[in-house]
């Protein structure tokens, strides 16, 4: 279990780094899918098999496919000129230093906690479902409303708006600003 955790953690970190630094959106998305799959393996080793399945199905299967569809619809390749000009290794320098400073603070803060060492307790889907539909029933309904709002918002924003032109203006040449 231990070695599986460390190997998958290394895979997740390396593939996330590659996803962030890649210039091609499709390659970056595929690296991100690899990262999500390895995180799913970590969930499995942590004793959360239901969450591991959800991670694969929803994150890697639905959300990332949505991203890939949008990238394919937009048909964007390596054409972001300004970013190509900017994306040099020294651009990563200052944010990385700041993030490393945050990480050092995080490690220092984490040193004060003393967690008792015991193997991860397996919490199966049954307990999660019982908790979800008794204690957190209101939150489930609220998230259903949130998803409904997401659907309506995505439909409204993604719709191609028809341009309304008055019928007297159709034949006239359009004035270019």
């Amino acid at each position, binding site marked *: 279990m*231990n070695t599986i955790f460390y190997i998958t953690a290394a895979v997740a*970190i390396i593939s996330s780094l590659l996803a962030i630094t890649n210039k091609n959106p499709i390659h970056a998305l595929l690296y991100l899918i690899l990262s999500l799959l390895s995180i799913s393996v970590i969930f499995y*080793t942590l004793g*959360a098999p239901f969450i591991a399945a959800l991670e694969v199905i929803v994150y890697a299967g639905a959300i990332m496919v949505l991203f890939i569809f949008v990238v394919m619809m937009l048909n964007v390749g390596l054409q972001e000129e300004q970013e190509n000009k900017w994306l040099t290794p020294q651009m990563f320098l200052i944010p990385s230093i700041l993030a490393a400073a945050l990480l050092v603070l*995080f490690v220092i803060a984490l040193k004060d906690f003393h*967690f008792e060492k015991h193997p991860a307790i397996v919490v199966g889907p049954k307990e*999660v479902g019982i908790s979800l539909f008794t204690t957190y029933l209101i*939150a489930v309904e609220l998230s259903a409303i949130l998803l409904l*709002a997401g659907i309506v918002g995505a439909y409204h924003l993604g719709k191609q708006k028809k341009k309304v032109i008055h019928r007297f203006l159709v034949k006239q040449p359009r004035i270019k600003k």
Partner: protein
Amino acid sequence: MTVPMETQILFAGVLFLIGLVGLLVRRNIIFMLMSIELMLNSAAMVFVMGGAHWGHADGQVMFIFILTVSAAEVSVGLALILQMYHHYRTLDADSMRKLKDHKANENL
């Protein structure tokens, strides 16, 4: 035999910081949304780790809620990206600076 809790939380923190660096560095808006996804995912991972450590189902329940929020966020965000691409023909987040001061716009 078991992985210490500190190492697990450190791993989640490293993933979060990778997402943060990506959000700060990249200007392509698809990559910015991907970095936000990475950060949300690593934050949700800490909930699952805590739930596994103390044997509660609440951590996994919180993960499901964060999953819902991120799915809704991604669908609306990608629709906004489509609209942005139709208006500006670019995915550069810096191209949308119409709200900025007019004088500042001229200098750029």
